[in-house]
């Protein structure tokens, strides 16, 4: 079968195998719960860093692993499956962004800012940054932040040490750090112009979240099927009830659609200018699948899935959080709709088939 190489084959990929083994060993449900209480999962992060996974998207000459975009996306899908409570996605994104500008990538946890379409960080004439970025993922844990900033008319990438930045802590509804960061007066360690603007950064972020969402959806399908087989009511496993079977069939469909959407977004990132239409399609469909899928998984799990003790919420709360980031379904759908009407009715079909 074809495939343009943008997607890794999960079945025989040593990078993904390595990541999965690390998550299996060091990212247990309790690790996720403790992280929400503020305990940094040191062993997990250490293992990810030791294996080079945190620098997946950084080429050899900038100190990284130099792996393909597809490999990194596949690792993030695995991370999503395990609800890994570390800024792996953010460190990968920061590595990618810095690399685009040719800036060497430091070790340790990284994150990016700003993450919103209307992000406004400026690099002033005196060489200092100004502006605030809201809801920066894992800012409190990051050693450095890769910042996209405006310098006059151009967009530059700036590497900023996080130490000493005023950070106002907040959390996502999944309990992950989403902090407001003030960059006023911060002097970057490096500044380089790069090809990435805020729109492309948000698009790339959407593709990253889609991988994590696809992983989380795979997880809740697995959990829901297993639960339905294990749980008995009315004298038989609830998996034997047609209503439950049909709910799970629908969940499987949503998971498959989200997975296909995540693949499409990953492919779109392989082109230099990122195919925005593909990203829009993927984030809308993936976001919908996240909502529909999480609802079905909870319905199947009953009251048990609504407890903190059960790990279902590790995935479902992240799905509700991630679908909102880097543009939710409404934002991307409106943009996609405008793209479609601009082309006109008779170009709708060619637009849909353009990717292949």
């Amino acid at each position, binding site marked *: 079968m074809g495939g343009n190489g943008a997607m890794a084959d999960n079945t025989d990929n040593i990078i993904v195998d390595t990541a999965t083994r690390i998550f299996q060993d060091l990212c247990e449900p309790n690790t996720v719960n403790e992280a929400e209480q503020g305990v940094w999962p040191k062993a997990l992060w250490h293992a990810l860093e030791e294996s080079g996974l945190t620098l997946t998207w950084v080429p050899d000459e900038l100190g990284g692993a130099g792996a393909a975009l597809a490999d990194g996306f596949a690792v993030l899908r695995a991370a999503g499956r395990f609800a890994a409570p570390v800024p792996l996605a953010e460190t990968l994104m920061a590595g990618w962004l810095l690399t685009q500008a040719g800036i060497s990538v430091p070790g340790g946890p990284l994150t990016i800012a700003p993450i919103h379409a209307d992000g406004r960080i400026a690099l002033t004439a005196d060489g200092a940054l100004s502006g605030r970025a809201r809801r920066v993922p894992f800012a409190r844990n990051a050693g450095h932040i890769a910042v996209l900033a405006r310098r006059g008319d151009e967009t530059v990438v700036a590497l900023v040490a996080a130490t000493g930045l005023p950070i106002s802590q907040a959390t996502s509804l999944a309990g992950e750090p989403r902090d407001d960061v003030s960059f006023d007066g911060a002097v970057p360690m490096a500044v380089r112009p790069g090809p990435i603007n805020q729109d492309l950064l948000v698009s790339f972020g959407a593709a990253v979240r889609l991988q994590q969402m696809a992983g989380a959806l795979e997880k809740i399908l697995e959990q829901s*099927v297993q639960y339905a087989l294990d749980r008995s009511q009315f004298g038989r496993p609830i998996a034997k009830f047609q209503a439950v079977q049909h709910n799970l069939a629908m969940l499987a469909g949503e998971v498959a659609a989200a997975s*296909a959407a995540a693949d499409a977004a990953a492919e779109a990132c392989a082109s230099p200018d990122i195919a925005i239409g593909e990203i829009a399609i993927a984030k809308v469909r993936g976001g919908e699948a996240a909502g529909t899928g999480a609802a079905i998984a909870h319905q199947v799990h009953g009251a048990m899935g609504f407890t903190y003790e059960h790990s279902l919420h590790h995935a479902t709360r992240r799905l509700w959080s991630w679908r909102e980031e880097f543009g939710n379904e409404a934002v991307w*759908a409106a943009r996609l*709709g405008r793209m479609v009407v601009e082309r006109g009715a008779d170009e709708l079909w060619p637009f849909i088939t353009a990717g292949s």
Partner: protein
Amino acid sequence: MSFSFRFDPVELPPEAKELRQEVRTFLREEIDAGTFSPDGGKGSFSREFSRRVGAKGWIGMTWPKKYGGHERSHLERYVVTEEMLAARAPTRAHSTADRQSGPVILRYGQEEIRQKILPQIARGELCFCIGLSEPNSGSDVFAASTRATKTDGGWLVNGRKIWTSGAHHADYMIALLRTSPPTKENRRHGLTQFLVHMKTPGITIRPIINLTGSHDFNEVVFDDAFLPDSHLIGEVDMAWKQATDELAYERSGPDRWIETFPALVELVRLAGEQPSERLAEGIGREVAHLATLRRMSLSVAGMLQAGKTPAVEAAVVKDLGTNFEQALPDKVRLLAPQIGDSQPDSNDDRFEEALRYATLIAPKLTIQGGTREVLRGIIARGLGLR
């Protein structure tokens, strides 16, 4: 263990991309020549059109050349199919044979029949229908009771098939007939597939008009209709073993998500260049669903090309696809600017016509070719739940 179904990305090979342009050119010429109109106004059945498609080499594309096929890939076939459907080309005279009946004959038919029938199908000369449903055997397809009884040199058929689409046009039917009673161990045992010439004495076709006012499906009555031995397809009593791959072919194609697409196209036309935010968002959502479904459907074509039998994956695509195409007209209806007296515009008429058609056919989309309930049962089995 992973419970997730995989729909690996497929990139179309260069020859498929060239082919797409070729098909578009052909369809434009056909429209210009007045063969059909893209709004579906001239019907979906044209033997002349099917012959021209056959002459292009676009029927039986994946079959061996010795049977009149063209030994091209499933991906190329996919491209032809989706272009035809998107343009609302009148493919009904050949589509069933191309998609389903031909592959069954190729796989299980007797050599004499293959040599006789397949080249004719590939030339666009034969129209097929499918004889599955009966008055007491709908979703429960293995409850069929129309009998084929062994006689000298062949079989005598008695009983009736119902909801048979296009039987009144068809030259042949592939029928599922009872040759033995089911066994205690296997209730699916005892059914056999046959090739039926529709002009066989003893066959009566009665129209059943559907709610759109059209004559599409029929009742087909068999009264001592004689089928020669050569028309036996596959093993006697063992049709249940042959059914699975047929369904994989039937269930994943573009026809399972594209039926109401014209309503969306006309909504885009109506929207103009400055749609409201609400309208833009609504259009975007539907396009996102459509594009993702197409991606999954194409992925299934890739699985077929790789020699797999993706029956469960096909059921997933059909379930998602038919639910999408069924819900689409209602979404479109509520997004569209209301027609009023102040804006006389011919686009309104086109829109209304497309929406009316889509609304009327919507109910059948989750019934034909396997109901939603049947599909979800298949998916549940694939998940290990039953």
